[in-house]
């Protein structure tokens, strides 16, 4: 199988004041593959996501998405247009459902742009035209297929905020999928899940890759998920890319081991620091 590049990240850099959160990162995520971004806390993983989905505007770098909907330069687009036009959907580290709307409504809101056009930007919908009613039925069918897949059909009319935590996580993924994306970005989807739920999640993600045939970009700390389902892993540490390869390659990479387990004490003071110290001593 030939790999088609879906997202090409080139020299992405993001600064917050004096802090360089993401420093000159380049990698490629392929279509119909699960690409995991891992790294210790504060490595800049979520910042990459936020640049990608338009929440931050990166000053340096290029984010090129070549998907079924065409070619887009994400760094130049507004946040909501990235989801609307380019087809990048995401979930959040701390779940962001619409808690006081029902489970079904959450999935219908995700299909807003399609329904908005079908409702003639509200005018046709106000008069209950047939075309709008059909579009709404299709939207419900799509939502229903996801509810059936997640086993949440019985809870469809519950307020989303009342669902158990694990179901909320899965509902957020289903909501993102209801936007019919070409790239799905998941920010720590397994956080707080028990081992059984985490196994279910692995199954769901491989199914999204294989049946819905889209690319998945994943930030995760749970190594059973990362190593079990990823086709490709990118490792960040202190905003730099330190490794990029298959799970097996990454697992045996000395730089990755050092980043996760810490360096051995044999390491001397870094040369530049030593030089600064000498200069200070002289002054």
């Amino acid at each position, binding site marked *: 199988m030939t790999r088609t590049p879906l997202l090409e990240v080139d020299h992405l850099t993001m600064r917050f004041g004096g802090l360089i959160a993401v420093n000159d990162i380049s990698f490629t995520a392929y279509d119909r593959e699960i690409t995991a971004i891992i790294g210790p806390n504060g490595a800049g993983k979520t910042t990459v996501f936020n640049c990608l989905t338009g929440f931050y505007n990166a000053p340096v770098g290029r984010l090129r998405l070549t998907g079924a909907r065409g070619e887009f330069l994400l760094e130049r687009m507004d946040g909501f247009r990235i989801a609307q036009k380019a087809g990048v959907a995401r979930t959040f580290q701390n779940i962001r459902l619409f*808690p*006081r709307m029902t489970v079904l*409504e959450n999935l219908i*809101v995700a299909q*807003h742009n399609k329904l908005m056009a079908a409702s003639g930007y509200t005018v046709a919908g*106000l008069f209950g035209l047939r075309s709008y009613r059909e579009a*709404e039925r299709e939207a*419900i*069918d799509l939502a229903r297929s996801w509810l059936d897949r997640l086993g949440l059909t019985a809870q*469809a009319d519950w307020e989303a905020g009342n669902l158990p935590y694990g179901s909320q996580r899965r509902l957020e993924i289903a909501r993102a999928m209801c936007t019919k994306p070409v790239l799905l970005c998941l920010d720590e989807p397994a956080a707080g899940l028990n081992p059984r739920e985490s196994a279910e999640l692995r199954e769901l993600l491989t199914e999204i890759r294989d049946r819905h045939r889209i690319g998945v970009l994943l930030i995760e700390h749970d190594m059973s998920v990362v190593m079990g389902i990823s086709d490709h892993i990118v490792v960040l540490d202190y905003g730099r890319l330190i490794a990029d390869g298959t799970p097996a390659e990454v697992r045996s990479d000395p730089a990755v081991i050092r980043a996760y387990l810490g360096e051995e004490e044999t390491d001397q003071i870094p040369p530049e620091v030593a030089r600064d110290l000498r200069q200070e001593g002289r002054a």
Partner: protein
Amino acid sequence: MDVRALLKDAGLAAFVTFMLALPMIGFQTVDVSGGVGITVVTRFGDVAISVVLVFFGRLALSLLQQSNWRLPLLALSAGIALGLPLLKTQAHYPVITWLTVIASAVIAIRAAWLTFDVSGVVGRDESNRMGDAAAFVGRWFGPVFVVFALIFPFLPTTSRYVLDLGILVLTYVMLGWGLNVVVGLAGLLDLGYVAFYAVGAYSYAIIARDFGLTFWACLPLAGLFAAFFGVILGFPVLRLRGDYLAIVTLGFGEIIRIVLLNWTSFSGGPNGISGVPRPSFLGMPFHPNPPEGTTSFHQFFNIDFSAEHRIVFLYYLILVLALVTNFFTLRIRRLPIGRAWEALREDEIACRALGINPTNTKLTAFAIGAMFAGFAGAFFATRQGFISPESFSFIESAVILAIVVLGGMGSQIGVVLAAILLIGIPEFFRELAQFRMLAFGAAMVGIMIWRPRGLLAHRDPSIRLADSAGAGR
């Protein structure tokens, strides 16, 4: 049962009452005859009565926790509530009598609630029960309200004064429903809503005065202008949320009022605009001697002229406008734009991640909310016949917002109940004279204690899987 604890609790409540009542009730300043100054009159008797009443009221409420005390207390408090108005004591202490009756009624209701609804308390939690009650109220009281509102002008008890009050309440119901779009659905806290009301009123007055258009031609224009101002307000506040949004909208409301106050050549300044044209019924004016070439309403229907025809017409006009607002809102809630408003209220960041354009969504909410205020403003102008910036002060915005919050954010029936309470009760309590606002304040405090999320805090889903599956297959 711990008698000492009960007495201590009731005594504490009585003590608090004493501390509050001594300065507020105990001393009254009155003019010395001849107008040379004021003197202080003491009313320690009233203070003592209040303290005793609070003591026993508190005791009764505590005793309600004991099931064997409920029935006797129910009988006693109901007896007091019903019997006291019949006694002659009213003449001496009207306020005290009123308060005693109300307090006894509250205790009686509470006792009845606890006595007959034990099964409801066990097993189901409070919020769920409230939700069911609200859904029930929504389903049955809505049509009842509409029917009542339709026959209201023809009830024998309806005087001119009561009908005017009805018009006033309906105006606030319409404003509350309009603001509900902005605050209840889209979650944008707007403290300057009265600005759009003013824009609507002045649009109608000025267009009718300078271009001679009729009310029905001006009504859409007034809505359009108000919506336009809604968008103008919307743009600078797109990035603001919560407190900051509230401050800017508050400022916007004041800007409109101050411009109207100072731009004399345009709006007449503090003198306002008088002689705003009255509405006509299909082109037929309500006038005893219609101008040449027109037929008056009473001539056409061949009935005697009565000044009340116009009032009844105005009543139905605002009823129709309010119902249009209601049905429009109910309908748009079930459309993508309405769901996007609610989603925006819940989580703006998630909305953006789903490709919802937050700019357009917010601006439409502001524009549609403002449009209804514009309609209500045009109605206000034609009803009063005179408008001035005085009518559009901040307190109006506060009252409208209070109606929305008190009714339960997003609840349409709640707005009706809250408008009746907020506008109607101060009128009904006129008998209480200077204690009117005290009773009003007490009612507000009571509602916020017992219904912290508003009178009817219940959200009906905009779509249900059960319904759609039944209809679709």
